[in-house]
């Protein structure tokens, strides 16, 4: 199976797990994405977040806070969710690009998947609509200032 399809399948699985509130399965999908390397799926995931948040009737701090609360409440006791960071990620995709600047890449991707899953859960869009076209891969050369 081509790598791209594998990444697409994993992202899809993570979104479905998030939409169903299946924390263990979601964490498992995150583990597989992690092993693939976040650079292979990160932009795809962020694009999904952009698509999903475009379905919101409005954007802004209050919407980000409310959406975060819903995700946090659904996964309370099963996933660790830092509300301020998730709000920052949502705002970074909607009304304030700078809000999410500097958020760790893996945390950004993981929380984005949870947010997309939440909006799928609330039927703002379907999984297919959220995923759209599949991956855009970046090379290490895209991160000249962030190498270890």
């Amino acid at each position: 199976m081509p790598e791209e399809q594998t990444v697409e399948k994993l992202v899809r699985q993570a979104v479905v797990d998030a939409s169903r509130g299946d924390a263990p399965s979601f964490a498992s999908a995150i583990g597989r994405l992690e092993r693939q390397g976040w650079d292979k799926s990160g932009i795809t995931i962020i694009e999904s977040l952009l698509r999903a948040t475009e379905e919101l009737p409005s954007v802004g701090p209050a919407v980000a806070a409310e959406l975060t609360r819903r995700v946090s409440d659904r996964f309370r006791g099963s996933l660790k969710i830092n509300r301020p960071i998730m709000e920052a990620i949502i705002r970074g995709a909607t009304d304030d690009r700078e809000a999410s600047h500097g958020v760790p890449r893996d945390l950004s991707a993981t929380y984005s998947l949870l947010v997309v899953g939440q909006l799928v859960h609330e039927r703002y869009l379907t999984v297919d609509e959220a995923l759209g076209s599949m991956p855009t891969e970046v090379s290490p050369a895209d991160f000249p200032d962030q190498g270890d």
Partner: protein
Amino acid sequence: MTCTYNVMSAESGQNGRPVRSSVDALTATAADSQGIIDAAGSEIDSSVEEIVRVAVSELPRDEAAAVESAVREIAGDMARVMDELADDVGTTFDEQATELRGLLQPDDHDPVDVGPAGLEPGPAKHDSSDADLRRITLPDGTVIVPGAAAPDPVGWEATATVDDEHISDDDDGVPQPHAGSAAATAQDEPEEFKERNENRSTRRSASQRAKEAREIWLGNGNEIGNLAHEILVEPNYEPPKPPPGLDVNDPVTALSMTLAALWEALARSTHRRRGR
């Protein structure tokens, strides 16, 4: 690998100082009190300085604000106790009480920053203060899961309780999707969602979306690592045991209880002096 992101300090300037300046003042005063307590054979092991340091140093700023609030409340109580001490035993506690009362003046310092600039309070249902107090933050800032490799997880916190009911809760009364229902058809959509879809006005073009996604991704920081393990709350997780006599697991309560113990020790000191 170091995680340098701290969402609470983003665009917030140096507003952390007011919390610490008040704490420093309280600490200095309480250090004098500590000498009396020690002389009286106090059973308190931890100084106020230590407690405040543990409670505040690693907290996100919104939680630090909660701690500061607790300090203010206790400081008020301690000020009244010290007034009594000054009257009863003729000590110089009146000066300390004055100093503590100074901490209660809101004009003492700048407002405490409670989040990223522009992040306004959410809707009424968003009970962030309650959530802040509900979360567990280990004093050293490490990830809550024992034994997990967690390279500098700044700001990483967890929910404190396991509540399976919330996992399947539906906030809007929308039926919980079953397997496969994520690809819901339009005919399944409630009216409110159809209306929302008709009001889409923020759609990007595919190329614009790809460009923005790339920019956002490139703007992200270094990975925390091992996130698949870190994000999952372990079912059998037991929080670290608090110091003997303190059956708490959050810094605000620990601070309150410890200062309450300090207050009690001061009262004992007064009692002993009266008995001389």
